């Protein structure tokens, strides 16, 4: 089935080789089937198959990049070679062949479901789960997607690696209509294997919106904020992930510059990038430059331990690639990227994190407006609930949560409700495994 992709990568590599140039060729093939939910019904089915090559050529120490579809390899290689004359000179060391770990990332059952068109049934289960709780709750939007992906990377130093992955993701927005404006809440989940409980996903969104009917007064000031995994993941990705990027460290654009070995988070916090774990959201045997995957400890016992690098930055920073070169599709050259961020802490029960007075937040609006250089943020927690005496009360509106994320991390407590979190942002993806967290040093305003 993937003969076309493999042949095309090999052909492009031979063309690079014939020119006595160094280089690598990255091929991608992805088949995605999706189903959309509109107003309580399955509205449509969509499918796309993507196929393409990214060609990186190194000529006289300079790197050029071109991309093309199979059959157009000659043009792609020629373009990459021509453009190489314009780039900076850098002795990029492409990896040589070595053993790679093989984390589990492909489930045959996902592929079978995709081929048998079972996604429509699964989508209906999500819809029914959301509809069945109360008569006035409607899953107004949402969808489910099943994808099978193939990646191939080969280079002129003998590397030729292949991987196949599967993924199922679904999300639904449950809505209660009101006279003026509606109230809504969403639930989304992701898995690389066929283990999601689709009915429960719909039910969970419905239960969330059902709990928002009654309002409570927003507590203001420096009150604790407990934040669910998805929202915590969004803040961490926009606020901390840029700070561990090796290039930002070298250029002084990270709050963690010069702080290696220092305590930067609460005592028990562990943050690592681990693409070697089975069924991880961003797991895989190698990165998009053919560097074998490895575990990268970033914060251990609250202490800053490592940053992440791709091949190019490794040379500039005089270190080794950590296997963090990703491309975000075949059209982009590799860039430093997190692979599969794992966050762990004390592992307390979430109920134990609920404060005497504070708020519980399920989602945040504006995580992308966080200042990636300083980590300062001011986002709206929504939906959010008042917490009093450790109990979740009514909905609070307009809860603006402000603070500095690296500072807040120093006193953050983590729960044990671990969730695999995935979100797509253009060509970039958030891939994490993390629990709920309690921020103890942020400000809430907005009454």
């Amino acid at each position, binding site marked *: 089935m993937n003969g076309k992709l493999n042949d095309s990568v090999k052909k492009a590599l031979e063309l690079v080789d014939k020119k006595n140039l160094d280089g690598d060729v990255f091929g991608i093939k992805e088949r995605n089937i999706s189903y959309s939910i509109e*107003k309580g019904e399955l509205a449509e089915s969509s499918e*796309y198959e993507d196929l393409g090559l990214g060609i990186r050529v190194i000529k006289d120490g300079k790197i050029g990049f071109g*991309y093309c579809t199979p059959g157009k390899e000659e043009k792609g290689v020629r373009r990459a070679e021509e453009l190489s004359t314009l780039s900076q000179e850098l002795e990029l060391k492409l990896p040589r062949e070595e053993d790679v770990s093989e984390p589990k990332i492909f489930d045959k059952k996902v592929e079978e479901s995709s081929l048998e068109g079972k996604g429509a049934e699964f989508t209906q289960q999500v819809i029914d789960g959301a509809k069945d709780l109360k008569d006035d709750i409607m899953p107004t939007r949402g969808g489910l997607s099943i994808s099978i992906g193939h990646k191939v990377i080969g280079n002129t130093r003998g590397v030729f690696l292949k991987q196949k992955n599967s993924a199922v993701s679904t999300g639904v927005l449950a809505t209660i209509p009101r006279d003026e404006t509606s109230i809504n809440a969403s639930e989304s989940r992701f898995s690389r294997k066929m283990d999601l409980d689709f009915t429960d996903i719909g039910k969970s969104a419905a239960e969330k919106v059902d709990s928002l009917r009654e309002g409570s007064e927003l507590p203001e000031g420096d009150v604790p904020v407990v934040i669910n995994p998805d929202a915590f993941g969004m803040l961490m990705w926009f606020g901390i992930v840029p700070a561990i990027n090796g290039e930002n460290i070298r250029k002084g654009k990270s709050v963690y510059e010069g702080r290696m070995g220092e305590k930067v988070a609460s005592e028990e916090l562990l943050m690592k990038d681990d693409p070697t774990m089975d069924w991880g959201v961003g797991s895989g045997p190698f990165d998009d430059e053919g560097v074998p995957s490895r575990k990268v400890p970033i914060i251990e016992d609250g202490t800053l331990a490592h940053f992440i690098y791709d091949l190019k930055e490794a040379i500039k920073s005089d270190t080794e690639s950590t296997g963090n070169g990703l491309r975000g599709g075949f059209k982009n050259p590799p860039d430093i990227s997190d692979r599969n961020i794992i966050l762990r802490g004390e592992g307390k029960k979430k109920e134990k994190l609920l404060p005497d007075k504070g708020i519980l937040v399920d989602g945040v609006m*504006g995580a992308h407006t966080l200042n990636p250089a300083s980590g300062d943020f001011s986002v709206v927690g929504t939906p959010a609930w008042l917490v009093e005496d450790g109990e979740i009360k009514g909905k609070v509106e307009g809860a603006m949560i402000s603070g500095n994320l690296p500072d807040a991390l120093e006193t953050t407590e983590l729960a044990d409700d671990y969730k695999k979190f995935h979100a797509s942002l253009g060509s970039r993806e958030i891939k994490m495994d993390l629990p709920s967290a309690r921020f103890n040093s942020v400000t809430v305003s907005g009454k």
Partner: protein
Amino acid sequence: MSLKDIIDYVRDEGATYCDIRKERWDTTSLTLKDGEMEKVTSGSEEGAMVRVLYKNGWGNVGTSDLSELKNAAERALAMAKNSDKYKEEKTGMADVETHEEKVEMPMEDNFLDISTEEKVSFLKDLEKHLDKGFVRSTELRYIDRLVDKEIATSDGTHVEMRIPRIVTYMIITGKSDTIQRSSEGIGGTGGYELTERAYEKKDIVLDRLETLLEAETPPSGKMSLIMDPHLTGVFSHEAFGHAAESDLVSTGNSCLEGKIGDKVASDIVTINDDPTMEGYGSFPFDDEGTKARSRTLVKDGILNDFILDRENAWKLDMEPNGGARAEDFRVKPLVRMSNTIMEPGDMEFDELIEEVDKGVYAKSSGGGQVNTGEGTFQFNAQEAYLIKDGEIDKPLRDVSFNGFTLRTLQNITGITKELDTGIGHCGKGQTAAVTDGGSNVLISEVTVGGRE
């Protein structure tokens, strides 16, 4: 087989409606970071999206293999038939005038005729202008994209169009007691001539960074807010425009549902979305082949229109107005904005400021997000100043504000005369090039989020 032959074939097999959008993209992308040409990229891709409606169910298939188009159409029909089994609510496509036309959007200076060397030289020259003591790091990006589209529908429309888009980004970073950054994107639909505009904006980016390095964290709570033209544009797009997208309206996800003809904003507010004006979000036909036209969404505070594709126009019993846009051939079109403008008013800036005892003057967007169903929004300004007793006071950094869309639109009490626009990329599961614009606008009350 021609697109028409494939469409005829699918219709003969029972399809209610079918359209095919074939695209070719040619892109050059350059990144200059701190004096080094980090990325020099060029490539082409092509593919097509086939959409089939069977009774009330849709099937959409995107493929990069143009030799397999008939097969893609067969799969789309099978998927549409399967979708129909699950669908009870009726659907359809509102009628539009059909067109057979070929349109090429103009480039004064064709970027395909400019060598990559010259484009690299442009970035290097621009970088020299950003070389100031307080700038620690610079990142400049140049992207040009030429898109050729051919759209055929089972109603008889067959249009071909060529859309050139070009954009330059300037991102600079500096450090004082905190690290701050300032960025600006400059571009539009057109040719290489648009790169000149980057030079006009360089001082804005520099001045902003210098100010931010001295700025303080903002106060929090409810207060007055003056938005500059760029932020007004982004506010009009995010807080209001998304709620006016008919796919959200027809599925119960918009606070504007059922409000056509109602007063939704103060009398001085008029908002247009116009793909036919000069802008980054311009196009001659939308991605269903409907001719582009200007839409007046709000007229003197009254909700006047939605942004409508053909299906949602059918559902809402309204007239389609060219609101369907797709990111590329892999995906079906969604209802999207184009160039969204809040029309200028009649006040001078000084008059606006004088009306504020305590508030914030916020400039240039740092991004925003909206919940269209609940009618709430959050925004971030790149640059801001405290306003005290009718005068601009100290600079502020990391200013965000939030509120309720309908309440906030009613709270607009002043709009100045000048109009300015900015460009951006709107995300709604797919990316779309857009222009947003307006004037300086006074909102009597919003919630500002701060740490004091």
